[in-house]
């Protein structure tokens, strides 16, 4: 028992250090007075943070990534939520086949997803660019949305909707007033997950983007020449924003819990 007592905190703690070292490194080197290549420490400066678009192509690729991420997330969340609702609530033929079609993209490595879509686009003769990436991202995000939202729909108590119907709510009203608000946290979580995955995706994007530059692609391409410190600024800023979103979400749900306890 003694061994176990310190083993878990020590190994777990070291693992957290392992997990966070690169993130701290990125943050620290966002303050590096780097010049063109941000490889070694050359002194502290605020310049990179004051002028995050200072290096060529950083902000263009960021804008591209945000645009792709938002559009793909909206499409994937809408389509995926509908599928999740339909699958749980309605009878179907070809149910097994549908399940396979949803699960298989999750069990397929990204290279294969990227390569097969590329084969398709080459065959169709479509020009690679913004829309081919949006399609690719929509496909891989959708499976995640379906799995996440479906779990939420399955855990809903159908009696709530029945109660609404007993109180003379039309099916539509019951859905929007009862079911949808209960599903919303799941849908929002799925959308955030989708956006994060789309924003961070490199492999599938690399196969299907042609000359269209996204943020991960920009970093990968400039890795050989040295990544500008501004990329670290944007990476760190995104990280801090996401962290704030999570913390605010936690505080809100904590407050809600407290309020419910008072009642």
């Amino acid at each position, binding site marked *: 028992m003694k061994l176990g007592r310190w083993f878990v905190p020590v190994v777990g*703690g070291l693992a957290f250090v392992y997990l966070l070292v690169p*993130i701290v490194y990125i943050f620290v080197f966002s303050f590096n007075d780097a010049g063109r290549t941000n490889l070694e420490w050359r002194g502290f400066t605020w310049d990179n943070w004051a002028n995050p678009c200072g290096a060529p192509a950083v902000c263009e690729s960021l804008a591209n990534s945000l645009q792709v991420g938002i559009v793909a997330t909206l499409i994937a969340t809408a389509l995926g939520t509908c599928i999740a609702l339909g699958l749980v609530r309605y009878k179907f033929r070809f149910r097994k086949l549908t399940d396979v079609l949803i699960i298989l993209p999750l069990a397929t490595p990204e290279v294969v997803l990227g390569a097969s*879509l590329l084969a398709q686009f080459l065959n169709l003769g479509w020009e690679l660019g913004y829309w081919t990436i949006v399609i690719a991202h929509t*496909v891989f995000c959708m499976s995640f949305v379906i799995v996440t939202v479906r779990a939420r729909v399955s855990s809903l108590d159908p009696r709530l909707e029945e109660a609404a119907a007993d109180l003379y709510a039309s099916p539509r009203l019951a859905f929007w007033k009862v079911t949808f608000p209960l599903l919303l946290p799941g849908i929002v979580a799925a959308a955030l997950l989708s956006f994060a995955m789309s924003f961070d995706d490199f492999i599938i994007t690399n196969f299907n983007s042609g000359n269209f530059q996204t943020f991960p692609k920009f970093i990968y391409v400039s890795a050989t020449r040295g990544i500008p410190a501004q990329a670290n600024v944007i990476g760190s800023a995104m990280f801090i924003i996401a962290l704030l979103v999570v913390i605010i979400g936690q505080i809100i749900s904590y407050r809600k819990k407290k309020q419910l306890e008072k009642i």
Partner: protein
Amino acid sequence: MTQTITKSGLSDLRSKDEIRAERRKGRTGVYLVAPGLLVLALFFALPVVVLLAMSLYVKPPGAEIGEFVPGFEIGNYATVLSAYWPELLRSFGFALIATVLALLIGFPMAYLVAVRLREKPLLQGILLVLLIAPFFSSFILRTQAWKQILADEGFIAQTLKFVAILPADGHLTATPFAVVAGLTYNFLPFMVLPIYANLGRLDTRLLEAAGDLYASPVNSFAKITLPMSAPGIFAGTLLTFIPAAGDYVNAALLGNNRNTTMIGQVIDSRFFKVIDYPGAAALSFILMLSILILVTIYIRRFGTKELM
């Protein structure tokens, strides 16, 4: 199932399961599912078929680079397999080692956050946020950061050389070690989070009871903790192994060396540098099929019903 008699004594409330069992019929369901399934069919299922077809294309005599005609050349598979079986095996080897390492590192992490810190919600919350923190930062940027941290001029390599663990002309990057470390690092959260979700539901009174009955800590771990977290371990290993086997970013950034080339790099370069579409397609298909076979065997052997 539970039957509750209401005040009127007439209607019995049906259980959730019963209600779900008689799913509604009708068009609405089709309208809900059809658009999304169409997208999946057109841009996932069909492309896989196209990929399969492309893997059998032939190069007509006197064709330009990148010119192929539809055919049925099964020999493409033999060609790429005989040329790239080492990369294929290496990918699975690296992915397997990374998965095992991620499990060994990730389990104590998950246990620490889910069980040990149960009484300290604040610290637990902070560590949970740190656990998902990597998802908020670009994985290529993090991999690139590792490359710089492990670089020859870097602090770690210099220290290891100073204490003579690493020979003076040794490297940390451009080695299989760096690639496996990178893979382990990048997919660690995918291992930890499912295990965390399972351990969160672990009733620690069971462990106390086992202790009261003179079970050794090892024994109660093997008989209680491990089986209780099995679905999480199962999901985590799949979520780590599958993307790791197909990854090429770690191999390209941290390896970039003939001893570390993974199959993803080969597929990428066959497509874009060599313009050998049939070869690239055949390799992709081999990768997909081998993963599906491995995963199916794994699920048959260890799978639990609640996963599928």
